């Protein structure tokens, strides 16, 4: 290597090159020194820099390189040996460091490159996320729009408002040119333009529903792009040169309750749809975006739901109104029915009383008339009157009872009563009719039948009278027998009464009564009809005897109320029949017995039933009739003395005697005289006993004569128990008796 010897020469021509070298070296050194400074400065600033060691190395390398170049500056001129040494050292160091650095960089540069790759990757990812966020935002926008639309749509339940609002809001949200709704007509064969956005009053175009485009739209639940030339989209006259905007159509299902009833038109699908058509503004070059289509679909669904809600609500409102109307009507009807029932009950109660009173008067007076002396024609007439009026009375009672039985307002009036006396009374009451028909009625009560029972006496009497009355009615000859006994369990279960389950208990017994008659009998076929209301047997006898046919029906009701059963057996026409009934009666507590009267009250006449301790004197010359009269009075509880002559009578009579019975048809005795003489015995009539004259049937003496002599009453012989009872009652109560009941 040649060294330059020129130390301070003036700059030669090729000294220019030297000068440039000198300057370059200087700047290189400067740069080389400033780089590490910059590096250090920026690394200090940065938070993360994993390669410190590399930096140091690099810094050292650069510094040494810079030092080398700097020292090179001194080697342009003459320089001392030290400079040379420094230069050499620097070069050696630089060499070492740069080699080491080069070796290091082999490791480091790939690392640094990979950092770059990762950075690129992350950037891509960030871009992707950005895109997605953009999508989400649009979706959210859409959702917001839908919510708002839904809110608008659902804020009303009025169908028109719903649809109008839908169109308006859609138009606003999507900035549509036109929006229209086509509804199916009633026939379902056409679509009619019902609502539009811009046009105020759609003229009412109709399009047949069988159009390929329409079918296409109806068959999918998505919004479908359709051609603007499609009839549904041609709502306005084309403006010529302008490009119409894209059109989208979507189906709106019309859910209706009565959907599936229209199935006799084959061309109609089971669901009905309306068609919504949306048109973008023409000449806008806008396209339908996916999110807009989705928005439209969602809105269509919402509209469908809203419409169906509105429809259902309408239906339910209508149903509720109808129900309310019906309720009101029912209430009114119920109140009217109640009023009617009350009115009827009042009417029945009044008529009950009003009709029965004259009826009883007629019956009573007719029977009285019957007992007087009559010519045969008169007797027949009176009998006819009696029969008719009895029938009428029965009918009135039956109808009144049955109507009360029917509506369940009848309740049994239970009380303790004398069972034996009831049978006796039935016999007594049936006597007139039976005697007219020359029938003989007998009754036989079982010895173990209790004398007293608990039940509805009146109704039981009614049943008995009805049954026995029927027996009499349908018999023209022969006899009628009544048997009464306690029914044991075997006899209670009867094949004729399969649904009758008697329940035994300690304080009840079942009374079984059989009434057998020898009358017309009943055809076995008719037996089932016997107990139905108003049904009559077809036999001649039955028709002749009249009757409303209610009696047995009422009996059956009463018997059932009493927990029993009633039926009729007959072997056939002309062979008589037997009516049997079983009723449940209670056994009274024995402590009640003392409270009961010994004899039943006779309902029609208000007679005292017992005359305990009444002192009676009987004057009769005929031993037999004397003992009969005595027996009668003893039966009624009186204290009886008998005399057989007028003298004995006058001798025995005293103030203790309450009543004196005088037989005034004794031959040789003047009844008047006896009466006068008795009265003479007492200072005033009040102190003396009451006088009753007993007369035979054939004697016709005016009663006024007797009254004038102070006789308080006149009785025709023969006297029955009840007659005697009435006589005593009346004469004791009123001190006067014209004629007996």
């Amino acid at each position: 290597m040649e060294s330059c010897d020129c130390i301070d020469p003036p700059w030669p021509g090729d000294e220019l090159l030297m000068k440039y070298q000198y300057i370059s070296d200087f700047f290189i050194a400067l740069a080389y020194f400033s780089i590490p400074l910059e590096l250090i400065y920026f690394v200090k600033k940065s938070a993360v820099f994993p390669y410190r060691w590399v930096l140091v190395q690099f810094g050292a390398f650069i510094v040494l390189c810079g030092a080398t170049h700097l020292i090179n500056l001194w080697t342009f001129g003459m320089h001392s040996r030290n400079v040379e040494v420094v230069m050499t050292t620097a070069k050696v160091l630089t060499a070492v460091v740069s080699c080491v650095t080069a070796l290091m960089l082999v490791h480091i540069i790939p690392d640094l490159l990979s950092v770059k790759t990762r950075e690129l990757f992350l950037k891509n990812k960030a871009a992707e996320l950005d895109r997605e966020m953009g999508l989400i935002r649009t979706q959210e926008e859409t959702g917001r729009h839908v919510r708002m639309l839904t809110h608008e749509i659902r804020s009303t339940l009025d169908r028109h408002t719903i649809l109008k609002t839908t169109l308006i809001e859609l138009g606003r949200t999507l900035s549509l040119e036109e929006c229209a709704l086509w509804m199916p007509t009633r026939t379902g064969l056409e679509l009619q333009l019902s609502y539009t956005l811009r046009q105020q009053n759609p003229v009412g175009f109709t399009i047949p529903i069988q159009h390929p485009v329409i079918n296409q739209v109806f068959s999918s639940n998505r919004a479908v792009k359709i051609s603007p030339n499609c009839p549904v989209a041609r709502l306005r006259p084309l403006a010529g040169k302008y490009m119409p905007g894209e059109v989208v159509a979507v189906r709106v299902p019309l859910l209706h309750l009565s959907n599936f009833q229209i199935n006799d038109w084959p061309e109609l699908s089971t669901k009905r749809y309306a068609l919504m058509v949306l048109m973008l503004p023409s000449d806008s070059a806008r396209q339908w975006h996916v999110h807009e289509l989705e928005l439209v679909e969602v809105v269509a669904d919402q509209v469908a739901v809203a419409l169906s809600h509105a429809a259902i609500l309408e239906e339910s409102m209508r149903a509720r109104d109808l129900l309310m109307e019906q309720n009101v009507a029912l209430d009114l009807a119920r109140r009217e029915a109640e009023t009617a029932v009350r009115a009827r009950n009042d009417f029945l109660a009044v008529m009950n009383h009003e009709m029965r009173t004259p009826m009883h008067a007629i019956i009573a007076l007719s029977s009285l008339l019957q007992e007087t002396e009559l010519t045969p024609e008169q007797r027949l007439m009176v009998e006819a009157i009696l029969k008719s009026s009895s029938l009428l009375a029965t009918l009135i009672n039956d109808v009144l009872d049955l109507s009360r039985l029917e509506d369940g307002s009848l309740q049994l009036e239970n009380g303790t009563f004398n069972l034996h006396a009831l049978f006796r009374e039935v016999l007594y009451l049936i006597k007139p009719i039976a005697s007219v028909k020359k029938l003989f009625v007998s009754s036989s009560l079982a010895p173990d039948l209790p004398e007293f029972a608990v039940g509805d006496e009146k109704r039981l009497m009614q049943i008995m009278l009805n049954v026995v009355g029927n027996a009499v009615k349908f018999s023209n000859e022969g006899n009628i027998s009544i048997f009464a006994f306690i029914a044991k369990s075997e006899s209670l279960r009867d094949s004729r009464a399969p649904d009758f389950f008697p329940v035994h208990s300690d304080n009840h017994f079942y009374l079984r009564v059989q009434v057998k008659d020898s009358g017309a009998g009943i055809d076995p076929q008719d037996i089932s009809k016997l107990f139905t209301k108003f049904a009559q047997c077809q036999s001649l006898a039955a028709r002749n005897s009249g009757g409303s046919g209610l009696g047995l029906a009422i009996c059956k009701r009463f018997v059932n109320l009493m927990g029993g059963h009633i039926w009729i057996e007959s072997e056939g026409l002309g062979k008589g029949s037997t009516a049997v009934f079983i009723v449940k009666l209670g056994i009274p507590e024995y402590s009640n017995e003392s409270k009961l009267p010994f004899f039943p009250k006779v309902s029609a006449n208000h007679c005292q039933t017992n005359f305990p301790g009444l002192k009676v004197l009987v004057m009769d010359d005929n031993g037999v009739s004397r003992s009969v009269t005595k027996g009668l009075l003893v039966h009624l509880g009186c204290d009886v003395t008998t005399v057989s002559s007028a003298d004995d009578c006058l001798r025995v009579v005293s103030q203790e005697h309450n009543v004196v019975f005088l037989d005034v048809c004794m031959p040789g005795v003047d009844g008047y005289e006896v009466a006068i003489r008795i009265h003479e015995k007492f200072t005033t009539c009040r102190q003396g006993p009451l006088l009753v004259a007993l007369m035979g049937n054939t004697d016709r003496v005016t009663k006024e004569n007797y009254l004038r002599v102070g006789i308080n009453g006149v009785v025709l012989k023969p006297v029955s128990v009840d007659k005697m009872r009435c006589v005593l009652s009346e004469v004791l109560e009123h001190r006067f008796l014209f004629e007996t009941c």
Partner: protein
Amino acid sequence: MEVVQMQRRFVEYAASLFREGFLDGQFTQLQQLQDESNPDFVVEVVSLFFEDSEKLLNDLSRALDQQNVDFKRVDSHVHQLKGSSSSIGAQRVKNACIAFRNYCEEQNTDACLSCLQQVKQEYSLAKSKLETLFRLEQQILTAGGSIPIMME
């Protein structure tokens, strides 16, 4: 049941008596007066009737046998008999007595005699019938049953 059969027989017999007019409602009244305190009332009264009637009939026979018939007396006897028979309900006897009385008023001896025969006949019929009836009653009572109450 034995008792029921007997009762039925009794009922039918009694019914026949009523039907044929031997007895009327008055007899039933008598039956009603018979109760636990007076169990033999009917029998007693009827026995009394038999006694009375026998006596009266004898008296009547004697009275009508006379040469000069005392119609007043006859009438009073017949009246008595009529009263008794109507008291116990012996209807036919009573009716015969009524007819008798009419002839008494007319003072027709022959007619009266035939009436007397009639009355006697009726009486004996009634007596035998009543006795049969009582026998039947007794049978029932001994068998432990109760007498059915008759009504005309």
